[in-house]
Structure formats: structure tokens, C-alpha cells
């Protein structure tokens, strides 16, 4: 055999209660090779890798490291075997510097800051990283934090690196840089696993692909033999078309006009700085930006959930009467009492959009439970609506009264989107509507958004996947550090242009508005 096997997982099974996260999965990870672990959300990729990094322990099956049977019971064990995992959510101490984070938890010579700083620089040179060992984490960008996480793992002597969805938070340029580093690590003989559900990344970086579907092992193929279509079929289990529709905008009318919107955090940091734009009916306005650039605050300001600056103005232009109504200073109830239906699918589905401990029926009433003149709840209509949404959107749940937090991510989102659309809105705002959803559900969501667009709703779509933004949206507003850094035509722009606007703040006069 030309390549040595670093890790062999044999017939691994892991169950959480009744749910089988992994069933009889076997994979090989080889040295000097990049393996993509591909699968939809909930297919068990992360669970499988968490058993290598010592977070879970398998219910059945064997793990061999360098040919010897191994038992990985804790992250400490994993490091002893030379396995390091870079999680999706970074585990860094904000107030510490880079090098302090690197030595965190180590003892003796390894924890010497000066030696560590020197070694960190060596690692950077070997693989082509760029990092300042003395920089504090709170001053770092997302991509720098990720780099630091990788260095942390390398410093501990890992030879097997597992990266969980590493590109989810990166711009196209940063992704390219990360891939460059990963290729260098491969050259140095490390075994690398990338967990992902982005097909073009699989094709551009990996040597082999292992595909999981609903916890089951589907197969492993050489990347050179794979295409987007063949991978999708293996991942989803059936043929699907991967085109997002984009109907032409018909009869656009001004629906929401935002002017001079500034939102300050309590410590005076400007989360949104002088933002102005309009959203039209019958159009999908995309909002792009690195996460945490003010997207959340923007939508919450329109929904009446944020305190905004005094000179800000958010005008709602009613469809029939053409009357303009100022929304600033009104809470969600006041807005609803004016007869305006703003639907909002927030990023935090269970923490804001739904009540996790309640069933579908009770969640349907969240915004209109005040209906009726008695002090008692009217549960008949919400129950019918819950039944309807369950059927039409194919929500998988044992019953409409099962707490929604027990549903899977995709089904939770269907409940939330279903409710918001059922309210017959004139404005529909969605934040990361397809985050964590499988392909099938994602396309269901795109279809629903397009239906709303055709019905003349002003749709605002905050997204993170640039490919989708470019295919779905009519116009794209790019936020950069709380500024509107440009509004571009979704049909004419390129991924590189949007990526550039996301990272490089332009001068005020440099705006290329459409």
C-alpha cells in the first residue's frame, strides 16, 4: 500500500435515545491525504468525528489508530493519539493572546510562553499561516481565530486533523487561503478530514470523499471520479435538480424605506452605522456580509425589537393606500395593531422565533394569541393551522403537541417559516433561513420564498452562502462592519465582487448602488 492508514473506524454505531446518529459506519483516514466527509445535516458526520476527538464514545464498533486498537474516552486521549479537531464553534478565551490560548491547559516546558511563541512562528512558517502570537483573540477576525485553532492543534502534535465545516464562516478569499494551508499540511504528511456539505469545495480540495446519509455509510469514491451531480445523488439518495428559480421582478413598489439607521451597543460600539436602503414588493433583497456585521440588528430594527438612533427612520409604505407609516419607536405588538403584517424568521429559531417546550399548536398562536374577547385561549384555529403546515411542508413529528425542540433542525425551521408565511405578510424577513438544513428542505424554503415574491411580498433574505445569494436574490445589499458597503444587482454581480465588498470597507462616495 502506498499510503499508510492513520485511522480505521470499523462498524461504528452511536445512538442518542431512539435516534441512530451513526449505524455501522466504517471509514479509513490515510496519511498525506485529504478526506472529505460529505453528508447532509443530520447525517452523522460530526457525531462520527466527535467519537475520534473523544467527545462521544461509540456504542459499538472499533477504532484503530496506526493499526492498533484504540479507546478514545476524552479529548485528552484524542490528543495522546495525535488527533486534533477544529470545531465549528471556536473554543478560545477572548481576553487571552494567541500564544496564551495555544498553551492553555499544557504543563511544564510546553507552557513556556517564549518558547511557545517561537514554536508558533515556526509552525506558521512551515505551513504558510499568518498570525501575531501576541494578538488578543478579541481583536481577531473569524478567519484569524480559525487559524489560531488550527495552530493550537498542531502545537499539541496532532497528525490527524479534523475540520468541522471550516468554510462556513469564511469569505471566498479566506477560504482559498485556508485551502492553501491545508494542502501544505497534506504535503507534510498529515491526515486531514474536512466535514462539509459544500460540493464544490469537496471537488476542489479533497483526494477522496466518504459520503454518509442518515447515519449510514453510503460509500467512498476518489474525488477525480466524482461530479457535483454524482455526489448529490449519493448524498440525497435520489436525483434532484440543483437550480434555484429566479422569476423576474414584476411591478416592484417601495415597501420599506430605511434611512440613517444607526444602532449602538451599550458600550457605544456602532453595530449599524447610518444604513439606508429600500426593499420593494415582489423582489428578494439579499443581505450579505460576514457574520456579526449588523445583519441581526438590521432585521430586528425593522421588526421593532431594537433601540435605534433618534434620527433613524423606517417607513412602511402600505400596498393599497400608499400611506407611509413610521415604524421607529413601535414594538412588534404596536406594529401589528396598525394592521401591518411583518413576518420575521429570526436566526435563533428556538430562542426567539419559537417556544421550544411548546408543541406546534401552541407555537402557531405566538403572535396572535390575543385573538378573541375572552381571557381564555382559542386553540381550535391554531390546531388546524398546525395540521395544515405539518401536511403541506411535510413536517416530521410524532404529533403536533410534541415540544418543537425535540424536532430536527429542518423541521423546526419548517414550523417557523410555515407560521410566518401563513400570516399572509407584506414583508417577509428571514435570517439564515437554510442554515443547518438538508438540501431537500433548503430547496423547499427557496421555493416558498419565491412563491412569496410572486405574490408581491417584499422578501429580505439574510444569507451566508454566496452561491445561493447570487442565484436567488434580485438585489444584494452587502454589509461590512455595520455599513452598507454596496448594493449590487444579483443577476450581474460575481462572487468575487461580493466577497470583496464583504471584507473591504469602501469610502462613502465609492458606493455602487443599483
Amino acid at each position: 500500500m502506498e499510503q499508510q492508514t492513520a485511522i480505521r473506524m470499523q462498524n461504528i454505531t452511536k445512538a442518542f435515545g431512539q435516534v441512530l446518529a451513526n449505524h455501522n459506519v466504517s471509514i479509513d483516514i490515510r496519511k498525506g491525504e485529504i478526506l472529505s466527509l460529505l453528508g447532509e445535516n443530520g447525517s452523522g458526520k460530526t457525531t462520527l468525528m466527535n467519537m475520534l476527538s473523544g467527545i462521544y464514545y461509540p456504542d459499538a464498533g472499533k477504532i484503530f489508530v496506526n493499526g492498533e486498537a484504540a479507546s478514545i474516552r476524552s479529548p485528552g486521549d484524542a490528543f495522546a493519539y495525535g488527533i486534533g479537531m477544529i470545531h465549528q464553534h471556536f473554543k478560545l478565551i477572548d481576553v487571552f493572546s494567541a500564544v496564551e490560548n495555544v498553551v492553555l491547559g499544557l504543563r511544564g516546558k510546553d507552557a513556556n510562553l517564549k518558547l511557545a511563541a517561537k514554536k508558533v512562528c515556526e509552525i506558521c512558517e512551515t505551513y504558510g499561516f499568518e498570525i501575531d502570537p501576541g494578538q488578543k483573540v478579541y481583536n481577531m477576525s473569524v478567519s484569524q481565530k480559525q487559524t489560531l485553532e488550527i495552530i493550537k492543534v498542531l502545537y499539541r502534535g496532532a497528525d490527524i486533523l479534523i475540520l468541522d465545516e471550516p468554510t462556513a464562516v469564511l469569505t471566498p478569499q479566506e477560504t482559498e487561503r485556508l485551502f492553501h494551508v491545508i494542502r501544505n499540511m497534506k504535503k507534510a504528511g498529515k491526515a486531514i478530514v474536512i466535514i462539509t456539505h459544500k460540493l464544490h469545495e469537496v471537488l476542489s480540495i479533497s483526494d477522496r470523499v466518504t459520503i454518509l446519509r442518515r447515519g449510514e455509510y453510503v460509500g467512498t469514491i476518489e474525488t477525480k471520479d466524482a461530479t457535483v451531480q454524482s455526489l448529490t445523488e449519493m448524498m440525497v439518495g435520489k436525483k434532484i435538480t440543483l437550480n434555484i428559480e429566479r422569476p423576474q421582478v414584476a411591478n416592484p413598489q417601495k415597501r420599506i424605506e430605511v434611512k440613517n439607521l444607526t444602532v449602538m451597543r451599550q458600550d457605544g460600539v456602532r453595530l449599524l452605522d447610518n444604513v439606508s436602503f429600500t426593499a420593494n414588493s415582489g423582489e428578494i433583497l439579499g443581505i450579505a456580509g460576514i457574520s456579526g456585521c449588523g445583519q441581526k440588528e438590521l432585521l430586528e430594527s425593522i421588526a421593532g425589537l431594537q433601540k435605534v438612533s433618534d434620527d433613524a427612520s423606517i417607513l412602511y409604505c402600505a400596498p393599497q393606500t400608499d400611506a407611509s407609516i413610521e415604524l421607529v419607536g413601535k414594538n412588534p405588538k404596536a406594529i401589528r395593531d396598525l394592521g401591518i403584517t411583518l413576518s420575521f424568521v429570526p436566526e435563533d429559531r428556538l430562542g426567539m422565533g419559537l417556544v421550544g417546550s411548546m408543541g406546534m399548536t401552541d407555537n402557531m398562536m405566538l403572535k396572535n394569541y390575543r385573538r378573541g374577547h375572552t381571557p381564555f385561549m382559542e386553540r381550535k384555529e391554531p390546531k388546524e393551522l398546525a395540521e395544515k403546515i405539518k401536511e403541506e411542508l411535510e413536517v416530521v413529528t410524532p404529533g403536533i403537541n410534541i415540544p418543537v425542540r425535540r424536532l430536527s433542525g429542518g423541521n423546526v425551521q419548517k414550523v417557523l417559516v410555515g407560521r410566518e408565511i401563513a400570516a399572509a405578510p407584506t414583508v417577509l424577513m428571514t435570517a439564515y433561513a437554510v442554515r443547518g438544513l438538508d438540501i431537500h428542505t433548503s430547496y423547499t424554503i427557496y421555493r416558498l420564498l419565491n412563491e412569496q415574491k410572486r405574490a408581491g411580498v417584499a422578501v429580505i433574505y439574510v444569507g451566508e452562502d454566496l452561491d445561493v445569494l447570487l442565484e436567488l436574490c434580485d438585489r444584494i445589499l452587502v454589509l461590512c462592519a455595520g455599513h452598507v458597503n454596496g448594493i449590487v444587482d444579483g443577476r450581474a454581480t460575481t462572487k468575487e465582487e461580493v466577497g470583496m465588498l464583504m471584507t473591504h470597507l469602501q469610502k462613502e462616495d465609492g458606493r455602487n448602488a443599483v
Partner: protein
Amino acid sequence: MQYEAGKISAKKKHREPLLRIAKRDSMPLLLSWGIRIIAVLLSLVVCAVVIYAITRMNPLKVYGAMFEGAFGSERKIWITIRDTVSLLCIGVALAPAFKMRFWNIGAEGQVLVGGIATAACMIYLGDVLPTPALFLVMIITSCLAGALWGVIPAVFKSRWGTNETLFTLMMNYVAIQITSYCVALWENPPGSNYVGIIHPQTKAGWFPSLFGQQYMLNVILVLALAVGMFIYLRSTKHGYEISVVGQSESTARYAGINVGKVFVRTMLISGAVAGLTGFIAVSGSSHTISVNTAGGRGFTAIIVAWMAKFNTMTMIIISLLLIFLEKGANEIASQFNLNDFASQIITGIILFFIIGSEFFINYQMIWRGKNKEVA
């Protein structure tokens, strides 16, 4: 290179962990109650061993005495019932606050101020007002007093985000000091430092006997409150708001609920019901007031509320269990000349097993070698 150390430990460590804990999905109702009953039986066995080890007495006799203490005579049964409904009433008062995740540990104080208001009405108005008017005034003032005690921390929390746990706790001490002052003010006979039974002859302001039972009115009142609160929390718009606020404040704001208003309104209700407990305690059972009128039940009721998961119907059973243990412990303490601590050990062991059984209902344990192929 670096993983040499790893290789050594790898050989040593290749063993499955002895015991792993995993969360259960759900459990059939029958099985979960089976586990709880087994827990109670096990606790009785452990208690028997402890009893024998400490006192060399026959545990069965001791258990018999405990039962005797709670249900030995008609009078004892009624005292047990009276104390059960008193504890239940505070649990009912706490239910809406805890369901809203508002840590009201100030029930003790809210009960006391309700008791003070009732006692003041009895002393100053007892011989002045006709009975129906007197009762109306006592109910209103005790509710108002309790509501005031409950709402102050809620107003501060909704306005300035203060911590309600500390605030409600501190309010207890204020209530206790006010009670001491009132006791000194109303003491009878002078110098005794007791208020004594108020109106022992005329019985003005005392609960009337119903169906020949002195405490029947207490039972009816409290059960009505428990049922009312059950419906309030389950079926009304207010109850819905309380659940949403308790789950997530940002969801509540998203839904257009005024979170501060719900805090204040719910604590008015919670405090008022606690105040009403003070009224029932003074007018319906002790007919006097002292710093022990609440008797720590304001804190015991927290256990009741949590064990019942804020369901006021389940609270009936839990209150009865706790009062039964208390009465039983007192009985064996006096009957066998044990000190209080010995009987409290028994109560503690039984509670430990009951609460501990919830762990086995929510989690399962996997021992080494029990690796099963899941189909």
C-alpha cells in the same frame, strides 16, 4: 515524533469506560411511576437499616409510629390535612412565578405580611364590623399586603434588571422584623411577648366550621385556588404569556409581549395568593400571629413547586407527602425519645431517593461490555 508519548498511553488505555451515562429519549408513564415507587420502597429499606443502626429499634414499629403521627386519630388526620393545604396554598402561589422563571423565594415574607394584615383586621375591626364585611376586608387587605411584597422585586427587576432571588429573600427579613414589631405592639397579656389567641370568646374573624369540621373551609378555599391556578396557567392568555416569558424573554419580545408588565402582573398574583395563605393561617387555623406563622413553609413550598413541575394538581400529592413525613418525624421523635435530628435523617433519606429517582427516569447507564448492536 510528538506522539510517542501517545503510543505508550494508548496501550495502557485500550479499555472501554466502566460506566457511561446517556440521556433517554422518553419513558412510558407507567414505567416512570414504577421507578418512583421502587425509589420509595428502597428508601424505606435504607431508612430501616439506619434506624436499626442508630436506635436498635424495630424499623417496622417506627414506620407504624410515623403513620400513627399523621393519621392516628381523626384529630391528627385533620391537622395533617390543615397543614397540607397550607403548604399547598403557598405552592399554588409560587407556581406562576416559577413557571415564569422568576425565582420568588420570598413566599415566607409574603405569607407573613398577609398574616399581619389579617391579624390587624381581627384586632381592630373584629368587634366593629359584621362578619361578612370583616371577612371581605381581611381577604382584601391580606391579598394587597402579599401582592405589595411580591410586586416590589418585580417592579425593580422590570425597571432596572435587579436580581429577584436576592430581592425576594431580603424582603423576608423585612417582613419578619415587621412581624416582631407587631407582636410587641399587640402582645396579650402584656409582657408575654405573644399575641395570644385573638378573640377566644367571641371568635370574631375565625373561620366558621363547615359540615361540623373546623378546617373544612381551609380545604375548600385552597382546593379552589389550586384548580383556579391550574386553569389560569393552562388555558388563559395570561398563562400563555407566562409560559413564553419563562421559556425565553427574547421570544416573548418577538411575540410582542411586554415582558416587564408580565413580571409585575404575575408577581401581583403570586404575592396575593401567598398573602391569602397568611389569611388562612391566621384566621383559619392559628388565630394568632407570630414570626413562626409561616413556619418555613415558604421555603418548603419551593420544593413542592419544583417536584410538581409547577402543576398545581400534582402539588396536592407532594404537599401531602411532605407533611406526612413531617408529622411522622415529629411523632417518632416524641414517642421514642429521639431527638429531632434522627427523624430528620429519615425524612432526608426518603426525599433523596424520590428526587434521585428522576435521574434514572431521564438517563440510562451503560456498563462496560453491554455494547449492544442497535437495530
